């Protein structure tokens, strides 16, 4: 791959655009078969590291497939991401990418936008041939007060 750092960063940005648009199938197309998705946070109140989502590709897909049968808040989420660092390991053909993430929520009724969450992505991206695939995404939340919460992952 000619520019693995750029390919890795592009993948992070593309994943956010697809999740914003709820194009889940296209999102999963960016993920490796052994993809793992985790949302974590630390509680200074209870002094515990917490896991708030813990899925592999199949279970995340099941979760999202069944969503239309659930009652959900339909306010769109916008993921604003900035790639901070890309550490490419040429031997492993993997990049570790750290990005800042802000998630904004826009109400359907009136269109008011509010900051919903602040977090970091810790991604592992496999790069082979001309392709890049997300193999791990850890969303490390700073924000722990999420109001109604969300049926859609970050």
């Amino acid at each position, binding site marked *: 791959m000619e520019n693995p750092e750029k390919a890795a960063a592009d993948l992070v940005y593309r994943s956010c655009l697809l999740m914003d648009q709820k194009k889940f199938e296209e999102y999963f197309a960016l993920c490796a078969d052994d993809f793992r998705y985790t949302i974590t*946070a630390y509680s200074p*109140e209870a002094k515990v590291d*917490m896991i708030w*989502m*813990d899925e592999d590709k199949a*279970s995340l897909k*099941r979760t999202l497939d069944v969503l239309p049968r659930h*009652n959900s808040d339909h306010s769109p989420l916008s993921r604003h991401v900035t790639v901070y660092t890309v550490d490419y390991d040429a031997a492993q053909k993997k990049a570790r990418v750290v990005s800042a993430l802000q998630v904004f929520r826009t109400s359907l009724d009136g269109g008011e936008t509010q900051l919903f969450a602040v977090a970091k992505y810790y991604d592992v991206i496999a790069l082979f041939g001309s392709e890049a695939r997300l193999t791990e995404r850890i969303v490390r939340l700073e924000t722990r007060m999420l109001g*109604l919460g969300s*049926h859609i992952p970050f």
Partner: protein
Amino acid sequence: MGRNESAFQEKPDFPASHYVDTRIYTDPDIFKEEQERIFKKVWMIACHESELPNAYDYRTYQHPGGVNLFVIRGEDLKVRCFYNFCTHRGNTLLYDPAGNAKYITCIFHMWSFDSRGNADTITREKEGYQDRLCKDKLSLREVKTELDFSGMVWVNLDDASIDLGSYLGEALDYLKDELSAEPLEVFHYHRAIVDTNYKLWHDTNSEIYHDFVHYHNRKTGMMQKGYFDRKFHCFPHGHGYLESMEIRYDAYEGVEGQRRLEWPKAPTACHKFIDLFPGITYNLRSPTFRLDTMIPLSATKVMIEFRGLAPKSDSPEQRRQRIKDYIGIWGPFGRNVHEDLLAVTGQARALAGVKSYLLHAREEGFNSHDEIGMRHFYEEWSRLMNRRSSGPYVPSEPGCVPDQQR
């Protein structure tokens, strides 16, 4: 055909115990009265003892009566609770939500207190006060504190209150075996501040007729054998519980298979919950346990605390599975809590500016969809408030017990 305003305000054709006036959920004056007559009088849960494992560990607590407290484990390992209030100039003593402090030192003028609430050090005491100061009169305001068998730390602002055992009676016994089998610890804590009245959240926890809002619960519970055989049981002081059933998690296509991990002394995949007046729920969906506690902030805003607890003895694999089972429906990204919160904020939005009545009138032999849990809650609410929940602005007769319960 819709109704005009006059018809909309007519009382329902049910006994007064079977409906409530909508304004009990929106009136700021009623909320202030609830703080005085209910929250400052009853036992509330501040935290779990595992949040204070060592001597001098503390945890702050925003009490729904309107005062800020902290709970601290003393050098004698006893758990005590105090106002988070410096007796000098009223500053907050402990700013962090949790920590460890052998001496609790105010940042403002460095007065310090020990873990029993005694005033220990007063900076430049002699120079400023000479011999005019009695330290005993500067100790912290202590709040009554007791632990239940599961390790929950209960506090009561009312020095004259009945003890915790008398307040709970036998209401917690339905989970006594499960919650006292092994020491527990908190693995999950999150809060949600939502625009609704606290009673609407407790109503939701008190009736599972609202399982219709949950696709997960319809599939795994309502459509399964035994769901409608569950009976609700009432206890003094507004508490109650619903009997258990085996939940068929494998009937929901969003997960893979039935729950397999056990909770000590609990039936596999059971669902037991206990609602405690005025806003606490113990909820065991084996193999995971959730505690809801509420801190009402106004008539139309509430902070809900969600704690997940697990046996301390869990192996890493067991804990990971327990967490997974918990967060799938109860975490901020889970299926059910989001739907519940959506529903109660929708209620609050609809209730704004409306004077009418809400029905609590389902009678199905105390089974899952009977609304006895809410009727039982409002009987206690009416007694403590000396107002009928069905007609809160009609003066009650002195000593009158509201006609709430059939």
